[in-house]
């Protein structure tokens, strides 16, 4: 019955070793999908390469469908999984700032690490920038504290906050994703090709 480590099936000492192994797989998949290239990443915003959208949505869909199937079959308890907490305005404001940073820098933290690993100097600078950003946040923490800690809705899922059946939501979500894939392919055909 999963999750295995919180339930003590795998001893806790293995946690860090498993972290490294999972990290290796994560880094490998990201790099091999082309996420170490900032121009490929930025392509999603200009319509010349939709790899980010495709990888991102496929991954989320596979994961969520898998989680619910495993829950159904009794391998995994959905209620024991960590649910990212909802701080409404923190998520919105932080997300908006991150979006600007994404377009300006062309990376997100995970992908920038992949690019650092293969020697992209712009990525190294970008990681330095992230650290500076964290430093600024920490120094000005009293200023950000109301957004950071306010508007807390708990570790809620869409089931709790919207009252929809998660199974139906997954089904609708997958249809939306497929429609998005088709549209993105159509857009990509029209936009001028860019080689990088």
């Amino acid at each position, binding site marked *: 019955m*999963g999750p295995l480590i919180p339930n003590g099936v795998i001893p806790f000492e293995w946690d860090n070793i498993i972290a490294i192994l999972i990290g290796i797989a994560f880094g490998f998949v990201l790099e091999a999908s082309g996420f170490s290239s900032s121009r490929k990443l930025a392509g999603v915003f200009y319509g010349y390469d939709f790899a980010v959208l495709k990888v991102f949505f496929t991954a989320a869909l596979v994961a969520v469908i898998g989680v619910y199937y495993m829950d159904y079959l009794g391998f995994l308890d959905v209620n024991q999984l960590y649910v990212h907490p909802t701080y409404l305005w923190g998520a919105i404001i932080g997300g908006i700032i991150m979006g600007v940073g*994404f377009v300006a820098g062309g*990376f997100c933290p995970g992908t920038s690490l992949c690019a650092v690993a293969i020697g992209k100097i712009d990525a190294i600078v970008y990681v330095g920038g992230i650290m500076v950003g964290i430093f600024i*946040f920490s120094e000005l923490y009293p200023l950000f504290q109301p957004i950071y800690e306010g508007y807390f809705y708990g570790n809620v899922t869409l089931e709790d906050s919207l009252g929809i059946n998660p199974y139906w939501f997954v089904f609708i979500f997958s249809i939306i994703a497929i429609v998005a894939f088709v549209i993105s392919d159509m857009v990509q055909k029209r936009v001028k090709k860019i080689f990088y």
Partner: protein
Amino acid sequence: MKKELKQKSKHIYWNPYYGGFLLGILILFTFYLTGRGLGASGAMKSSVVSIIESVAPTHAEESSYYSKFITEDESPMKNWLVFETLGVLIGAFISGGLSGRIGWRIQHSPKITSKRRLVFAVIGGVLFGLGAQIARGCTSGAALSGMAVLSTGGFITMLAIFGSAYATAYFFRKNWI
């Protein structure tokens, strides 16, 4: 010239659906093993905290934000996400090495200079670092792992990131196309 480039930029990366499928399986596997999702910016936060702690320990203890992550007996670097990030570096290095993508270079659009690219990378990094702290997670930690368990916060973060990125993409177009 162009044909050559086209051949070069074709088939060097995985099919995005294949990559996405493997990534999804990996997230599922991570949830099955550890009950938590993936993350990336957490490790950078830990490094910042430990740098500040070693440079200015009293300041770190007084600050209301750093002190959250400092414990008496353990260094902030001894953290799940730090180990996972080490793994990411190794994994990306292996993948890049296998397909011959390793090398020092600055990737940028031919229309802009390297310097401009680096300046914008720093600006983007600072903004992303700031935003990731406010939202308590980045694209992998909040959006991707959050979406995998249908977290409301994860969906909001994802929509906010992509919404604002599309909204501001026009102003940065010269950097990319």
